[in-house]
């Protein structure tokens, strides 16, 4: 089994789903046995979810969307 230092190198890409099947297996084997790293990965995962949630709160105003639709209309006609 890989140690904590080696496992930590994979964490970001593990959460980004950018690892090969083989590397996913290595990471998950480690996380299954190591609460220490499991906590780290869960914290990072929670942080990402929070970031996404915060960002999604920002939306383009309906007025601007209307302007865009109008410009598109003018472009076509």
């Amino acid at each position, binding site marked *: 089994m890989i140690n904590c*230092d080696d496992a930590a190198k994979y964490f970001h890409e593990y959460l980004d789903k950018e690892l090969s099947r083989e590397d996913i297996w290595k990471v998950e084997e480690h996380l299954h046995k190591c609460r220490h790293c499991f906590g780290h990965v869960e914290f990072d995962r929670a942080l990402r979810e929070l970031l*996404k949630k915060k960002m999604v709160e920002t939306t383009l105003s309906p007025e*601007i969307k209307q*302007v865009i639709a109008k410009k*598109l209309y003018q*472009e076509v006609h």
Partner: protein
Amino acid sequence: MVEYDPLNKNKISSEVPAGSHLDKAQEFETLSMTYLDALYRYALSLTRNKNDAEDLVQEAYLRAYRSFNTFQRGTNLKAWLFKILTNTFFTLYQKQKRYQAAEEKLKEEPDFSLFRDTEKEIASVPSVVRAFPILTRDNLENLLGDEVTKALDELPDEYRQALILCDVQDFTYQEIANILDVPIGTVRSRLFRARSMLQKSLWHYAEERGLWRRAS
């Protein structure tokens, strides 16, 4: 090769039939309107200014429409729109030069040692999480919700953009590399640094608030 239509006894034209620009507009609108909010959030991360971001989305959207016939059906429309928005940004704000300069600077840095240093810093996180279980998934938002946005704003432009494309827009590394027109290795290193910096500032906030103390 010219095809022959036995029913019409006419050449089948490969040209778009007249009047189809209405269909094209409709198809474009149907497909792309749903991405306006996502495009706007990304535009904000580029311009860091509401008005500029709104202008950028409008301009990029119309440019996308004008070149919609170059879009290949079945490929990723969202990634295509994001790339057009990125290019529009560089054209309108002529930021390319500054970006390239920043890129050069990145190359000069001893990448590997920097990576190891950051790794070392990160290696101290699990002990923080373990020693101070107050920072859990459930209460992270209550404790650090506002700080996350602040910490994100404080990141250097190119790190913040990569992070938003990855974590908020769910693009793959390869798609991000295409959108930003940089090698995939650059995407990896920007993301790595962005995450390290983000975590670091959050620990500082947590520390300031007395949520945890460094083990002495």
